């Protein structure tokens, strides 16, 4: 197309022209830096979010099956077997969840606890252990909210256990939670040998739990409630999405500002080539064709700057992530260095938006140049 042919020649020639060359170079570098910054920022955020998400998925059951009301499951194996038959389910574990008092010496504190089959001993959350000054190896008394009948009347169910470990505060958990063996939890909550308050289900495709959740709900009927890991951690999932949007919008402002330099490039080019625009009109170019030439010139700088910026940004993200060049305090983040993850879709979206903005920014001065009467420029040249 002739407009791109001429624009390319103008831009190549601008290397020899101080006026156009300087503004074109400034626009090119500004846009490239803006795009590179955006790609690196998104890669860093994607790296962190992937880390958080994987931790979340390893700690949180992908589906949580609970009774719809206040009841409990009395035939845990049978219900668990029906859940296990649902397509996409990898494992099903009954759990006994409830609230107890943890007591040591003269101090006591309420605590959420969950009993799981594979848990060995009592593991307290750091947040639960700290107020009572509990350290691993100490013995504590667990007092249930349920009671049993004795010759003296109803008395609370009590258990004495040794604390085998402290769990670090986990990602996305709404409240601190202690864990203990399932049988001990069944005894504390008087659930019987085959009782459970719910099931923790792990899926083959954790990223899309909705379909499996619907299948489990359909298999068990309306008496159960099925919540996905996204629903259980709704606040965190929303925060991650919002964080991504806000970061994108904030850093894209750099691209917006850099894009305005393209308007200046287009304007300077149009001003210095007013005579050429007039000659093009004389040779039969319509105002729109003349506009396309200057828009293509400004947009061309934008395309070049965008591609250069994408290349720099992707390379920087791979180098920074691959060689671990951004160290982090591991005890705080659970990571020795900042993770970078380049998402192809991010790169594509950044590239498309940057190129589109480049052409939009270059369009206004190009239109103004095209509307200048050719005779005025001809008298001036």
């Amino acid at each position, binding site marked *: 197309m*002739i407009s791109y*042919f*001429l624009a390319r*020649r*103008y831009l*190549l*020639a601008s290397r020899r022209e101080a006026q156009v060359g300087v503004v074109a170079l400034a626009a090119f570098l500004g846009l490239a830096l803006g795009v590179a910054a955006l790609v690196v920022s998104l890669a860093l955020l994607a790296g962190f979010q992937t880390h958080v998400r994987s931790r979340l998925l390893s700690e949180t059951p992908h589906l949580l099956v609970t009774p719809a009301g206040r009841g409990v499951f009395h035939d845990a194996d049978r219900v668990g077997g029906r859940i296990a038959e649902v397509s996409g389910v990898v494992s099903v574990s009954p759990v006994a969840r409830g609230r107890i008092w943890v007591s040591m010496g003269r101090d006591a504190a309420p605590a959420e606890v969950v009993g799981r089959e594979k848990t060995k001993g009592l593991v307290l959350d750091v947040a639960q252990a700290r107020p009572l000054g509990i350290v691993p190896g100490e013995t504590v008394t667990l007092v249930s909210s349920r009671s049993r009948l004795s010759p003296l009347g109803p008395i609370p169910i009590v258990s004495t256990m040794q604390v085998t470990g402290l769990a670090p505060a986990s990602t996305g958990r709404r409240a601190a939670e202690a864990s203990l063996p399932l049988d001990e939890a069944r005894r504390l909550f008087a659930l019987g040998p085959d009782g459970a308050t719910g099931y923790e289900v792990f899926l083959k495709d954790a990223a899309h739990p909705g379909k499996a959740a619907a299948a489990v709900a359909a298999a068990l009927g309306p008496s159960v409630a099925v919540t996905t890991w996204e629903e259980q951690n709704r606040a965190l999932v929303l925060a991650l999405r919002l964080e991504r949007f806000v970061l994108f919008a904030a850093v894209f402002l750099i691209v917006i500002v850099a894009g305005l330099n393209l308007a200046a490039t287009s304007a300077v080019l149009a001003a210095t080539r007013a*005579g*050429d625009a007039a*000659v*093009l*009109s*004389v*040779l*039969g*170019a*319509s*105002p*729109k*064709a003349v506009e396309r030439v200057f828009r293509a010139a400004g947009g061309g700088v934008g395309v070049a700057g965008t591609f250069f910026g994408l290349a720099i940004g992707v390379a920087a993200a791979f180098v920074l992530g691959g060689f671990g060049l951004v160290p982090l305090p591991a005890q705080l983040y659970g990571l020795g260095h900042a993770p970078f993850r380049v998402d192809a879709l991010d790169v594509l979206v950044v590239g498309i938006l940057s190129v589109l903005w480049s052409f939009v920014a270059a369009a206004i001065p190009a239109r103004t140049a095209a509307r200048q*009467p*050719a*005779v005025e420029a*001809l*008298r001036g*040249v």
Partner: protein
Amino acid sequence: MVSETAPLLVAEGLAKGFGSGEGRVEIFRDVSLRVLAGDLLAITGPSGCGKSTLLHLFAGLDTPDAGRVALEGADWAALAPAPRAALRGAGVGFVFQFHHLLPELTAEENVALPLFLAGRPEEVGRREAREVLDRVGLLGRAGAFPRTLSGGERQRVAIARAVVRRPGLLLCDEPTGSLDAAHAARVFDLLASVAKERAGAAIIVTHDPEWARRCATIKLLGEEGLSDVARSAFPAVSGGQTVV
């Protein structure tokens, strides 16, 4: 479709002035002209009498304060910008006093530019451009940029560009004004012959009697319009031949 006898250009009652209020200057009024196929017309007059402005009106680049201009039957004033540009590209060739070649393009590309703007494929445009460059004796300089060409060569490239689409009307604004006498004579002779081969008619604006007297018809532009001038009023000063 324009018939053989229909005029290529019709200008009726044209008037043009610049400025407004007390500072307004009337350049000319009541200019009427009919140009037929095969005409080679010189418009002469003193500097500042509006010769270039009149050419701009003929080419549809400017609008008259009064009167109308029609090219090949189409009234410029009735056309929207896009069809106006298309008619200008196909129907008008323009040679300026200064070549006005685009410095970033080679001679071949400059000549092919009207064809590119008309949407011809690049190969076709370049081939036709080389044919015309060959006609003006510059095929060997097809790849040269304007800055490396002499003044005469640049003007010959500009002439090639003006006729590459075989326009109905060739408008030349002081085409030899920037050249020395020797180059001017060669360029004028080339212009006249190329115009005859590749354009329907030509109007040459010049204030130089030497070039005016070589044209078949000579018109003098004044405030009151165009008036006929006898060729005998312009004696040959350098032995130049009458073209038509």
